């Protein structure tokens, strides 16, 4: 197991190299000349040339990539074209709130999603099931910005319980995490339900009952674990997306997250920032995938870690 994890982590390295190259290529294929943008409208050709040279834009693209990677390996992501603040610093102050918000959204989406899913499966085709599935469908179909606006109207404007936005205290995380988590919770609830309904038909459930186990033990002690594989799959995928930040929800709650930083830097053609963010997202996604794979092995002992 420990060996397997190390092997997988080493396996990530070539993947990262390929991804970074693709990201790099993409950014450089986007029309528009960063040197011209930096120099401004009135700049002479000579000035632009100078900036080009300084940014190594006059080198062949592969050379540029190597220079960039060399910087990365030394912890240098370059600096913002616009503000000249180091990219590390820009991302650094956005990353933590984004990760916290993602964890919170995912956390309660998992807890409530699984709970609703279990209730729906156990009381299949009875009112807890209908109630749960109505909640789930609403969660999927309500746009999250609308949910955000309604919550702001209710809890901030009318009741004054929560701040309308920002990430200054934990209270600022409550509403955005609900807005982001609602859809995911709904998805998790539906996956849990359908998977658990399937598992409850299995022979070993009947064996469990024939041994006098209570419904509680059967559902939580026997059936749930076998039912969680599809749930872990969606949850992992959704968590990957969450880490990338949500522009809409961050805008509604003026939350200082990664999503807005990305959109802002794309609009400003701030290539170094965009590039670093995309790399980071890829890295996070790969990491989440690794965790999901490890969870598969935990949930299904037939999946061996050997090869």
């Amino acid at each position, binding site marked *: 197991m420990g060996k397997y994890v190390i092997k997988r982590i080493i396996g990530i390295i070539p993947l990262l190299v390929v991804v970074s190259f693709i990201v790099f290529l993409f950014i450089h294929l986007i029309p528009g000349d960063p040197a011209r943008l930096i120099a401004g409208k009135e700049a002479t050709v000579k000035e632009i040339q100078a900036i080009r040279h300084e940014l190594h834009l006059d080198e062949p693209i592969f050379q540029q990539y190597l220079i960039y990677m060399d910087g990365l390996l030394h912890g240098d992501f370059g600096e913002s074209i616009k503000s000249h603040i180091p990219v590390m610093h820009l991302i650094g102050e956005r990353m933590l709130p984004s990760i916290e918000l993602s964890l919170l959204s995912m956390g309660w989406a998992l807890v409530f999603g699984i709970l609703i899913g279990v209730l729906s499966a156990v009381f299949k085709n009875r009112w807890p099931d209908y109630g749960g599935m109505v909640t789930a469908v609403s969660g999927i179909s309500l746009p999250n910005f609308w949910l955000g606006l309604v919550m702001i109207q209710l809890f901030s404007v009318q009741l004054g319980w929560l701040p309308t936005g920002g990430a200054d205290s934990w209270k600022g995380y409550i509403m955005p995490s609900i807005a982001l988590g609602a859809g995911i919770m709904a998805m998790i609830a539906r996956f849990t339900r359908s998977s658990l309904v399937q598992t*409850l*038909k*299995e*022979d*070993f*459930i*009947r*064996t*469990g*009952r*024939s*041994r*006098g*186990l*209570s419904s509680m*033990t059967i559902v939580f*002690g*026997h059936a749930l*674990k*076998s039912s969680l594989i599809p749930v872990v799959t969606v949850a992992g995928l959704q968590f990957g997306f969450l880490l990338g930040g949500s522009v809409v929800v961050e805008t509604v709650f003026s939350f200082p997250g990664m999503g807005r930083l990305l959109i802002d830097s794309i609009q400003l053609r701030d290539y170094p920032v965009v590039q670093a963010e995309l790399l980071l997202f890829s890295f996070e996604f790969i990491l989440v995938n690794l965790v999901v794979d490890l969870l598969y092995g935990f*949930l*299904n*002992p*037939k999946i061996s870690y050997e090869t």
Partner: protein
Amino acid sequence: MYDLLNVKGLKTAFKNNNQRVSVVNGVDFGINKGEIVGIVGESGCGKSVTSLSIMRLLHDTTGDIQDGKVTFKGENLLDLSERSMRKIRGKEIAMIFQEPMTSLNPVMKIGKQLMQGIILHLKYSKEKAKKHAIDTLKSVGIPRAEDIMNEYPHQLSGGMRQRVMIAIAMSCEPELLIADEPTTALDVTIQAQILELMKRLQSDRGTAILMITHDLGVVAEVCDRVIVMYAGRVVEEASVDELFESPRHPYTKDLIESVPKIGERKSRLYSIPGHVPNPNQMPNGCKFAPRCQHAMEICFNKEPELTSEEKRKHRCWLYQQNNVGREQNLGSK
């Protein structure tokens, strides 16, 4: 009256498209302490449903028990609350199923599955339960019992898994073990070993066994008494010797006839003509009449009662007293 289990007029129906279909229809039989009783019959005749009804394990299906009594040690199980019933299941009456591949939880270690019941029913501490679990595994002939405690079902062969199932069933020393085709999914040598094991458990511990099977070979091998079922009814009951020596019901005769015998060359295996009636289109009268070589007029009109003849029972007009057709039909075969 039998001193362990008495099933009387058991009736179980399933709901299909808002229509109730009785698949077990007035089943009567009993088991004494330490006895091995077989239930035989073609596929679909209601053997499994009968055993699930005794255990009241129809939760996850559309079936429910409509009528009858299941008296276990003087107590009607059908009157018990679900909570009291859970104390019977696994402790007083244990069950093993046909498919050892799917009857164990694939994602839980054998040891944990085994200990769960021991802790629940015998209220042992964890260490004591573990020791008891290992002892039970050894008693059903599992080598390296300690290692197997930490393994998952998929790491074991089919025969080993069925031994584990038996260990789980026997771990709380039940008085009755219901085995629903425990050897059907296994190959012949393993099958013989498992039957041997069950016989040994019965003689060592005095556990009564209800052996459900459609294999008359299994019945001949292990059972003391046999119940033959057809279309949700008991059609004959006799001791094993009597049944094979002088079967009464034509269905039983056909069943025995259809068992291939070693050393006997036949151009074609005998199979009973026709097929089992669909539960929602049961014929009037005797349910076997349409397939019966000896059927008389009355067989199509009126269903015979289960009638005692000394120690055996049968449900057939050929043997009913005051039956006009008796003489002419008895000798006809």
